[in-house]
């Protein structure tokens, strides 16, 4: 995967400016609430138009203000797993899972739905109504739904933050296994250091709307500890206690 991004978005007194280039398959965007992670995610997925800049994925220009290019979300092939799953409430689990898959050409359907359903352990849920699922089940179905659309990149927007502690650790092995099995590049967005460590190899650190640093995940903790007690240090301590 090669992702090249240089975008800017202004909302009155808040500015989000992100310039980076990613080659790693398992990347993260790490930062506190309000640091601009979600804004960046929305711009990448085509859900929010940047004020200026360029977004390229594997050499394909998805957005280029100057050239007047702005591919709509459905043409970008960037999947999103939302924080609260957002499964379509009027459809069964099965229909949710197949929603994206049915919208890509047959030749591009590279993922076997049965295999994925098996890995995610959702076979027994297929005919259920979405409202009857637990939080963890919802997130597994949401992940399956996104993967079956065969995206070129998956953005995971704090997918675990809506789950309680135990559920969180039950779903992480599923996530790791799915991404290992199908080798789909991902951008894991979170404010949790532990999740970042478990899911990613490289991290973009965001603060006050800016990409402050791009470092291997292994270096994440020491870097923040050197930060003179500002920024993430407090959060880091909380994570350590937890």
């Amino acid at each position, binding site marked *: 995967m090669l992702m090249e991004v240089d975008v800017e978005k202004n909302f009155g007194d808040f500015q989000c400016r992100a310039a980076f280039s990613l080659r790693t398959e398992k990347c993260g965007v790490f930062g506190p609430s309000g640091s601009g992670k979600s804004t960046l995610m929305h711009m990448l*997925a*085509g*859900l929010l138009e940047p004020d200026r800049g360029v977004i390229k994925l594997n050499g394909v220009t998805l957005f280029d203000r100057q050239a007047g290019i702005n591919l*709509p*979300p*459905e043409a*970008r*092939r*960037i*999947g*999103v797993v*939302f924080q*609260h799953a*957002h499964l*379509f*409430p*009027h459809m069964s689990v099965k229909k949710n899972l197949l*929603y*994206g898959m049915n*919208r*890509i050409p047959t030749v591009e359907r590279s993922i076997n739905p049965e295999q994925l359903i098996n890995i995610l352990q959702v076979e027994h849920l297929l005919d259920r109504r979405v409202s009857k699922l637990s939080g963890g089940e919802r997130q597994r179905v949401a992940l399956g*739904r*996104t993967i079956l*659309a065969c995206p070129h990149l998956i953005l995971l927007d704090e997918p675990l933050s809506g789950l309680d502690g135990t559920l969180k650790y039950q779903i992480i092995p599923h996530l790791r296994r799915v991404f290992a099995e199908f080798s789909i590049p991902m951008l894991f967005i979170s404010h949790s250091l532990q999740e970042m460590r478990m899911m990613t190899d490289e991290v973009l650190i965001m603060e006050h709307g800016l990409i402050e640093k791009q470092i291997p995940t292994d270096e994440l903790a020491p870097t923040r500890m050197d930060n003179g007690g500002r920024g993430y240090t407090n959060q880091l301590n909380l994570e350590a206690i937890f």
Partner: protein
Amino acid sequence: MPYLTPDDLLAIRLSLQVAVTATIIALPAGFSVAYLLALTNIRGKAVLEGIINLPLVLPPVVTGYLLLLLFGRNGWLGHLLALFDIRIIFTLGGAVIASSIVGFPLLVRSIRIGMEGIDKQYIQASRTLGAKWWDTLFTITIPLCSRAILSGMTLMFARSLGEFGATIVLAGNIPGVTQTIPLAIYQYTSTPGGDRMALSLCLVSILLSFMVLLIGEAGNRTLSRR
């Protein structure tokens, strides 16, 4: 004992015909306007909303009179339609137009509120899963606000059944042609000895309106169970 003359039965039929046609004709336009107001960032939303809601606050007679000016022989729409030999005033078409305009704000308001209640992330999820905007409209937006659409249609239908002021000005009160239930009741009340006949039609009117509300509620329950 309620007694209905053949003219009364005709008035009931015309009322139903007007209400059904007005609701069906207004639905696509009402849905589109609600979509513009709820889910897009177009300019001049406040002005558009004001214009749409005008018939709700204007006396229906005023709405009818404005329509008469528009569709009359010297009105620009009436003039245009006359070229194609189409006449609106004093026809059933006029009654349908009057009902459509008067009931339109109720339809738009109901659908708009339903659409505004949809979590935008469902729409975003659908788009990132490869659905174009019209695909999302039919598979996500419409099903998620189906109850609001039904409730808007019910209100519009009931309002059309009861429409009087704008209809009598634009379509007149011609028995068998444009005379709907409210117009027939009006005629009976201004005719000596017509009280009993008026009462019979009042009962029919109450019954019809009640049935519309019941059917609407039953539909609402069915959709909420889905």
